[in-house]
């Protein structure tokens, strides 16, 4: 475009002798408008998705998007892998499991990160779009229940957590704490952590259950939002991936039943399956991976596991 613009500008003064000065400026204006329209038109054509994603054989780019729980780990993997293989470029973005899967269905990413399994209707939507997703487990995650460090409550059962999050218990006094109102924190409903916590803790794994989070639950747009509120507010209770727990939050030991045992989340307790709120983390590819994507995923599930504990997750056995 700049070249075209220059040539037009260059030939315009030649016509100057053909008419008055006044006329020349008018022509310049007309030419300018014409150029503007041309540029807009070309820009519109240029943004056509079919044109902008050519199969460039040079430096291959792997587009990776999805779960906010996985995003730090995915970034660490991508950085390490790009150091080892400079010919590959990996771009990682978060946004939530649902966002990543939607992008995979729409064909805008190569690898989707998800902290939950794809729902049957999502698989259907993908198939309808000509994409057949393939699932890989890349790490394990434990969801920690966190409170303010000054909160005297050390242990909670699934039943108590469920009653708290459905609004049946509204004061810390009822679970052995101070006389304070309970402020419920949750992730937004596009978070895989949210779905997992609802199904496995609030509904206690009961598929018949129709329990919902209390309407008073604060839905935070990010993990950072939960971290900030829990570390500031002595009334708050939140849940988040073990990888996001900072020293300013207190982790509560959890038991499936009142009889116990109450278990703190850690790499050991998740690996030996004694911590009750843990789950696998997935990546999905569009069809069986090939080439660079296959090589990358093999590395992630092999050597890449060394990075997993550093981010706070639990590596595959």
């Amino acid at each position, binding site marked *: 475009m700049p070249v075209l613009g220059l040539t037009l500008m260059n030939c315009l003064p030649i016509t100057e002798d053909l008419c008055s000065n006044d006329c020349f400026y008018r022509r310049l204006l007309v030419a300018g408008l014409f150029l503007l329209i041309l540029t807009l038109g070309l820009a519109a054509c240029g943004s056509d998705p079919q044109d902008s994603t050519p199969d460039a054989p040079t430096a291959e780019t792997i587009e990776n998007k999805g779960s906010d729980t996985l995003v730090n780990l995915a970034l660490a993997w991508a950085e390490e892998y790009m150091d080892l293989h400079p010919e590959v470029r990996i771009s990682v973005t978060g946004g939530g499991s649902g966002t990543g899967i*939607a992008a995979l269905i729409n064909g805008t990413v190569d690898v989707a990160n998800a902290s939950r399994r794809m729902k049957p209707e999502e698989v259907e939507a993908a198939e309808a779009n000509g994409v057949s997703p393939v699932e890989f487990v890349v790490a394990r995650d434990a969801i920690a229940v966190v409170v303010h460090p000054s909160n005297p409550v050390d242990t909670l059962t699934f039943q108590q957590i469920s009653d708290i999050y459905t609004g049946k218990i509204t004061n810390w006094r009822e679970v052995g704490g101070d006389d304070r109102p309970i402020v419920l924190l949750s992730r937004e409903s596009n978070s895989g952590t949210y779905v997992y916590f609802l199904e496995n803790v609030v509904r206690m794994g009961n598929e018949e259950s129709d329990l919902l989070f209390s*309407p*008073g639950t604060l839905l935070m747009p990010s993990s950072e939002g939960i971290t900030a509120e829990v570390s500031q507010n002595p009334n708050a209770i939140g849940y988040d991936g073990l990888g996001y727990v900072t020293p300013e939050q207190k982790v509560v030991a959890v038991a499936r039943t009142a009889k116990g045992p109450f278990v703190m989340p850690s790499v050991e307790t998740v690996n030996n399956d004694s911590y009750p709120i843990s789950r696998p983390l997935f990546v999905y590819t569009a069809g069986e991976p090939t080439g660079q994507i296959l090589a990358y995923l093999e590395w992630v599930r092999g050597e890449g596991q060394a990075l997993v504990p550093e981010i706070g997750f639990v590596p595959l056995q």
Partner: protein
Amino acid sequence: MIEDDVLTNGKTRWAEFLIEAVIQVLGFSAIGFVTLIFVFLLREGVPAFFEVRFDNLFGTRWYPTFELFGTFPLILGSLLVTVTAIGIALPLGVATAVFVREVAPNWAREILKPMIEVLAGIPSVVLGFFGMTLVAPFVRERLGTPTGLTALTGALILAYMSLPTIISVAEDALDAVPKSYRDGARAMGATEWQTIWRVVVPAARSGVVTAVMLGLGRAIGETMAVMLVTGNAARMPVTFDSLFRPARTMTATVAAEMGEVAQGSVHYHVLFGIGLILFVLTFVINLTAAVTIFQKRRRGGLR
């Protein structure tokens, strides 16, 4: 000479016509785009009103993961936050405008005006973060609310955001009041205070109403800052303490959930339906403002 040239030269006349045509097309395309946006909003939003039963759509429970699409708490949440914000911003904004225009010495006005304009340029996400880390703990500790992420916190941030708009527009309105009004008031022996509040401000009221409406428009459409500080709990704000409890606005809901929905699903249509409700609300507000101003003008106010 040149004039004659322009009129007689056929080529020039053609260029004239072309330029006029292009400018006309560009002008009308603005109307075209607005119409297209509205048509798109209707096309994506209207199905929601058929796909979801009326008592569900205007019910009191918003829980889209389980097909509960009660938009009532969201509408009330938006109204609560916005009206409170304007309640805070209106007296502050008008008083600041009066100070800048009528009271402040020239040098102070020269400093204040650009400062107020800079205020308008602060990105809303920065204000939201500021609200989350500083205003929210302040609200919780000083007012003793269970959490600092409340409708009031959102209203405070929104008030701050709509202040520059209200001040600038109100100040222009005060500026447009003829000097003769002030001179007349002084000649009748009015003090400066009486001149300002009995003569100048009433004369500029249509401009002040416009300022408030623009501020209201800015506040009700604001998303990012509100999403960060209001806590986003879709509870019904019907009790007296609702201002000091979390709330969820329509804009925050659309922003938080649009990324996850499958295109063409019921949830997707409901989110556009919320956009439609927001559009109608803003339209009603603007219409009311226009009618008020029109009536006041006819009653023989200024201009």
